[in-house]
């Protein structure tokens, strides 16, 4: 009578997701609320269009790439269901990290690496670097200067001289920033 039909989570499902991801049951419920708010047509999954409707994400320079990583790498067939949604965001959960936990520093670094590496060859080559640069600066810096920045970055960080940045070289560069702290997110309870 007037309320929308929403398929709610059962206690067992919440328990399962809590065990897999390390979120508290309260956090899972709030995440689920958020998921259903974003999934306006109640399809049961999120796709690219749903995520684009978030205005603050839409005006983010890396918007397309973030959505690509979320939906293609962590979802299936361009759809992201709630389990996958919770799994991705558990990578950024603040809290103590145990042995095989999802929010390990390794997983955070893998996510960031995935933003650059779209052809999944585990290497960042110059064109991938250039495409990210283009997204970050828009039309404010001319092409040739962007080229030179990209080349310089690769030569600086490439250790074995293969003109691409591997995952290990990437992790080394990011040693100087505290990835755990910078990429931890606030989840309301």
């Amino acid at each position, binding site marked *: *009578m*007037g*309320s929308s*039909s929403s*398929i*709610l*989570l059962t206690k067992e*499902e919440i328990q399962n997701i*809590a065990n897999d991801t390390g979120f*508290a*049951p*309260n956090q899972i*419920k709030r995440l689920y*609320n*958020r998921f*259903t*708010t*974003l999934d*306006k047509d109640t399809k*049961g999954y999120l796709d690219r269009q749903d*995520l684009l*409707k*978030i*205005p*603050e*994400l*839409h*005006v*983010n*320079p*890396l*918007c397309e790439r*973030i959505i690509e990583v979320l939906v293609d790498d962590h979802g299936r067939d361009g759809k992201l269901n*709630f*389990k996958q949604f919770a799994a991705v*965001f558990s990578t*950024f959960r603040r809290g103590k990290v145990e042995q095989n936990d999802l929010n390990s520093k390794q997983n955070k670094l893998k*996510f*960031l690496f995935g*933003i*650059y590496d779209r052809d999944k060859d585990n290497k960042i080559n110059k064109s991938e670097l250039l495409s*990210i640069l283009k997204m*970050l*600066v*828009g039309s*404010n*810096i001319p092409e040739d200067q962007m080229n*030179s*920045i990209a080349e*310089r*970055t690769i030569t600086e*960080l490439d250790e074995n001289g293969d003109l691409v*940045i591997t995952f290990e070289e990437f992790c080394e*560069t990011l040693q100087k*920033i505290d990835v755990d702290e910078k*990429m931890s*997110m*606030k*989840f*309301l309870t």
Partner: protein
Amino acid sequence: MYLENLKIVSKTLSFWTTSCSSFNTRNLFFVSMANLMLNKLSTTLTTSNQDDDNDTNNNLNEINSSRLLANTFFAIFISNKILSYFFVLNLKLSILAALVIGLASVGASFGLRKMYVKALLKIFEYATNIKQEKLKDYEELIDNELETQMERHEKIKKMQRLRLDTFRLDSADKQLLDDSDKQNNNYIRDEKEISNKQRTLSDMKRDFQLDDITDFVHQGLQSIIDDQVTKRFTTEELTVWNLLSRNDQQYEYISFRVTILWLFGFILRYCVLFPFRLVLFIFACSFTFLSTFLIGRIREGKFKCWLNWYATLILHRILSRVFSAIITFHNREHKAKCGSICVANHTSPIDVIILSTDNCYSMIGQQHGGFTGMMQKAFSRSARHIWFDRSETKDRTLVAKRMDEHVKDKSNMPILIFPEGTCINNTSVMMFKKGCFEIDTVIYPVAIKYDPRFGDAFWNSSKHTMLQYLMLMMTSWAIVVDVYYLPPMTKYPLEDAASFAKRVKQVIAKKGGFVDLEWDGMLKRASPKLDLMYEQQENYSKHLKIN
């Protein structure tokens, strides 16, 4: 499954009773109640099987068909009840209706609604306490490994504080409100700080680093979890549950006592309050058509204005009782006067009714079709309102000219306008459109604050149609509103319309305790402009060192 069998039983029962020749109200009552109960229970207890899409579709179809069945039975029951009202079979209730209408006309009140509201608050507290206790027990079973003893104590203390302080869950909003307060005080000092920082930053250009993306990625991901805009277009979350299952997004079977309470509340709202309110509503609509027709026939002049004034006031007072609205006006000395413009924040179509119980306004808006259109035409017969066609809205100068003419004539009623352009969920105020601020006249701002504990007044136009929304309103407990009249404002000589609009918005946001957002309310339906993205890109490239 147990539930399936119950459903089958109830369906056969309902078919059997309808095929009976005796259309007894009591039979229908029981049958429709049973169906509605099953509906609610089935939606709350249905399992979600995320891996199997077919299963969820089947579930949805079942739920929809049983809901349809329940709705038809409910409709039959309600119309039965209404007929009994109109045929004066129920003398006591029709006397009650007449009394309410009489009081409304005079503008007096017995104070019954206020007592009702106080009693409701106590019941809500009780229900929430039970719920919190049960939830705590359940969560303690799970959380044992995740929390230390100290953290658990903190959590309990926090919950108790929440109960005492406010009923708002959103701590992010509280932060924003605190920040905006501080900002207003330190405005001048911050300006100097910012300009200093910019000078030093531009001297400190850095090379491009691979980790430059972290900030953007973090901000993007955070906005997926919680952003400032999309949550303004859904109902607000509360910590105190007000026994309306539509408001509790994760209603589960927690405790027997709470379910019984909810059941009583449900029966009270749907079977006692709702028919009564519906009768009042039908009366009010017929009163509108009749009065506007009669007043429209009178010659233009002072008498017509005076008559129209009182007729509109009475009509809106009756309408406000339809929703059991308890309205408190503050600072009535700042009520809008003739020949001015009144601006307010927009939460629902009921805003107009609430404001019109105290003062008469000329409305402005798009000419709709259907029922709303009929009402608009009826109102135009007895007073001057500004309705424009959809094709004309694009022509802003035409609308501005009509407003200008209306305002120049000092005998005209003040224009009521909602500059946000769409309904927002009463936690924030979004960008004001500058159209009406370009006109050279006094602006009277008004802040409308709904108390969300008694009923959610926000109209989510993508979720409910107008009729569904009215039905929801008429089956809520009550609508408790605070209306704050604010002192009149005029544009400074060198100020442009956009800054004036911003200034008025700040005043309204401050008074009503809303979060002041610069985002456009039209983002409900449209994508944002990419200017903000270009700005971010520009700022980033300023700090990049180029050889």
